[in-house]
Structures are given as C-alpha cells and as structure tokens.
C-alpha cells in the first residue's frame, strides 16, 4: 500500500469509529466536544482524499464554530431553566 492509501484507510477507520461515539454520548456538553474532535477527524479524511479546500473549511466551521454555537446555546438554555 502506498502512504496515501494508508492515510486514507486510517482516516476512514477513525471517522467510522468516532461517528457512533458522538451519537452514543448522551451528555450534551461532552457530545459537543466529541463533535469537535470528530470534525477534526473529518478534516483529516478530506485532506487524505486530496480535498484541502474542504478540509480547511471543515477545521474552522466543523471543529471550532459549530461546537461553540452548540455550547453557547446549551449554556443559555440551561440558565433559562434555572430562572
């Protein structure tokens, strides 16, 4: 196997293993963090399949901005419940 193929297969395995973990975690805050890590793995997958443009967008949006919005929304919703 070429190094490219090894990276591609490894990225596929990691993404495949991480996806159920994100779904099975039931605690919302932990889930947002897991989603962020999963986003990074997806970025590696895109990079391995020669889509660096998409990988860059995925890192910023999928690994940083999306989990941040989820965390902020949950924190706000929880405070509303407490009030």
């Amino acid at each position, binding site marked *: 196997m070429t190094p490219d193929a090894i990276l591609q297969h490894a990225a596929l395995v990691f993404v495949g293993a991480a996806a159920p973990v994100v779904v099975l975690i039931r605690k919302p805050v932990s889930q947002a963090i897991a989603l962020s890590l999963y986003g990074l793995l997806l970025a590696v997958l895109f990079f391995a*399949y020669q889509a*660096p*443009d998409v990988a*860059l967008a995925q890192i*910023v*949006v999928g690994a940083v*901005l999306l989990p941040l919005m989820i965390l*902020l929304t949950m*924190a*706000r919703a929880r405070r509303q419940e407490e009030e």
Partner: protein
Amino acid sequence: MNAGRLIVFGLGAVALAIALLLGVGGLPPVGDYRGPYGDVVYAIAGPERHAANAVGALVFDIRAFDTLLEEFILFGSVTGVAVLLRPTRRKGDGSAARTIADAADRLVVFLLVGIGVTFGFYVVVHGQITPGGGFQGGAFLASIPLLVYLAGGPGVLYRIVPRGLVAGAGAAGALLFAAIGLLGLAAGGAYFENVIPFGPRKSSIVSGGIIPLLSLASGLEVGAGFARLIRVFLEERLRP
C-alpha cells in the same frame, strides 16, 4: 430498553448495512474519475485563467453565480440570527464579566493573534494559488476574536467586534461580490464573466482576473458574518 424496539432497529440496521455494502461495492476505485467536468475545469483553470488552484477558479469564476447565492444565504442567515438575538432593554450586556485567563494565557493569545490574523489574510488573498480562499480565510479570521475573548473577557471582544461594524462589513462584502459580477456586463459580456486581465501565467497573487477580487469580497463577507455570529451568541449567553 424495549425488546420490540430493538428488533425493529436490528432488522432496519441489517437491511441498511446490506444496501450500503452493495452500493459501496459498485463504486469506482479512488481516483478513477469518469465525468467530463473535472477535466474541463482543469483545462480552463491553469492554462486559461492562470489560477493554480482549480477549486478557487471553480468557486470564484466558473460557478461564481452559485457562490453569489451562497454568500447571500450566509448573509441572510447571520442577519436572521442577529435580529432574533438583538439586544433587549435589560440590565447590561455582560461586558463586565471577568476572564479566568492568567498572565500565561494572555501571553499565548498575544503571540497567536498576530500570526493568526496574518495567516487568515494570507489564505484569503491566495485563493487562486493555494487551497483556501475567501470562505476558509474569512472563517479563520472570525475565530481570532474568540481567542481574544478567552484572554481578555467579553469587554474586549465587544470593543474589537462592534455590532454595527460587522453588520456593515458583512453587507459590504456581499454587495461587493455582486458588484464585481457587473464588470462582465460593463465589458459587454455576461454577469460574472471574467473580463479582467489574468495576470502572470505562473500563478501569483494578482493572477486569475476576478478570482482574487471575489475571494477578497467573500473573505470580508464571511469573516464579518461569522464574527457577528460569535458576538451575538456570546452576548446572548452572557447577558445578566
């Protein structure tokens, strides 16, 4: 868990797995490209438009009109969120909230901000040469204020990301994007026709005609849009 539910799920999962395996088995191997469009894009991007990054040429030239609509979708969504989360007349905006960052955290952020901003602008202006472009660079730039917030607290974030500025900059970016398309009409061609000289054959920062211009406009729109989103979400969260 309910046993009946598990059986229904199991049957569905097995059927889905079989269908997926059959489907994946019929896929061509990685790198075996059969459509004509990729070849056409490659023939146009490098040799004709002098843009080494074919993806940049595709997004900001060949399908620039689609990208225009995407810019407006993003602008519209961000504006919608900002309107929903507009400041109401309540006591304060949470800007007095303190940060838990210590001196070491502040030093790291201080060192990272300059590098981050430089890299963000680099990605925006090199869209036609290397992977990236307006969207990626803009989103990256928008995450810098977040770093500043971590070190300095909400007061600093509110100061460097004023509501009016990011709203105006986002609108200006979207408008600029639409206006650059008019150059084609002015030259007697089609909307978004690439009529500006393509620059040096060996891709440089000025190669690609309208590609770097559209990338800049997109960077302004996306960067301001995401910064605005971060600002309104944080403000909503921190409002006492």
